């Protein structure tokens, strides 16, 4: 088996990012859409760590810490909004929340 290079990690991260994108575009449930966003952020993290390993520079790993921080903040706020939405509209489906649509 040929050795694993940075390109392998990039291909994996590409596939994971596209899976996450398809999830965001096709699912109705907002909770699953948020999970897909987590998948996208993880694809970015794989890239950052792969390059950090390739150039032997630890800065990329520090970037990953910031990405994880922002992801945690995003999840907290988004789920707060989701609870408020469910209380007011009684649904968690993205295509049923359309009062701004003209």
């Amino acid at each position, binding site marked *: *088996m*040929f*050795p694993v*290079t*940075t390109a392998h*990690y*990039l291909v*994996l991260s*590409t596939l*994971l*990012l*596209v*899976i*996450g*994108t*398809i999830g965001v*575009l*096709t*699912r*109705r*449930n907002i*909770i*699953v859409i*948020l*999970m*897909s966003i*987590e*998948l996208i952020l*993880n694809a970015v*993290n*794989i890239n950052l*760590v792969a*390059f*950090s*390993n*390739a*150039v*032997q*520079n*630890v800065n990329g*790993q*520090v970037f*990953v*810490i*910031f990405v*994880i*921080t*922002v*992801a*945690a*903040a995003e*999840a*907290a*706020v988004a*789920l*707060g909004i*989701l*609870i408020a939405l469910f*209380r007011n509209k009684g649904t968690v*489906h993205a295509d049923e929340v359309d009062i701004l649509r003209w």
Partner: protein
Amino acid sequence: MWLDSVLFYAFAALILICAVLTITRRNVIHCAIWLIGALLGVAGLFLLQGAEFLAGVQVILYIGGVVVLYLFVIMLVPVSEEARQRRFANQKWLGLLAGLVLVGELGVLLSRGADALPIAEPVAPAALGEVGNNSEQVGEVLFSQYLLPFELASILLLVAIIGAVVMAKVRPETG
């Protein structure tokens, strides 16, 4: 080296299978469980690349924090009723098409840029190795070079906590 390849392919398969199941399962709780599998695979890849600190952060913060938060919120939404409804929105074929176009674009990008991939001459590990292990290196850089972003991240988390509480709180006057 041989073991590294096997582990990489095992973790990659785990990540991709769990990710596909995450976005296709009908039951939201099952989605969250498969998401845990994908995140564990990413943590394994971090370990494989010598980022031990990040692997720990990934498991503790992502799986132990974020996914548990998701599960808490799922419990506030009636799942049994949820499971009987349509999973995908009306634009699902368009979304799938957009995803395939994206995969094509990124594939072209990767194949064109393949020559440039050995991007830089790796710094000799000895230059970093004298600082200590991975956690020490990350801590050293985080608290010197990235001190201001670190403090800003703490403010961001504070704002997010307050925002989440305000958003999810029941306001008696508005019902």
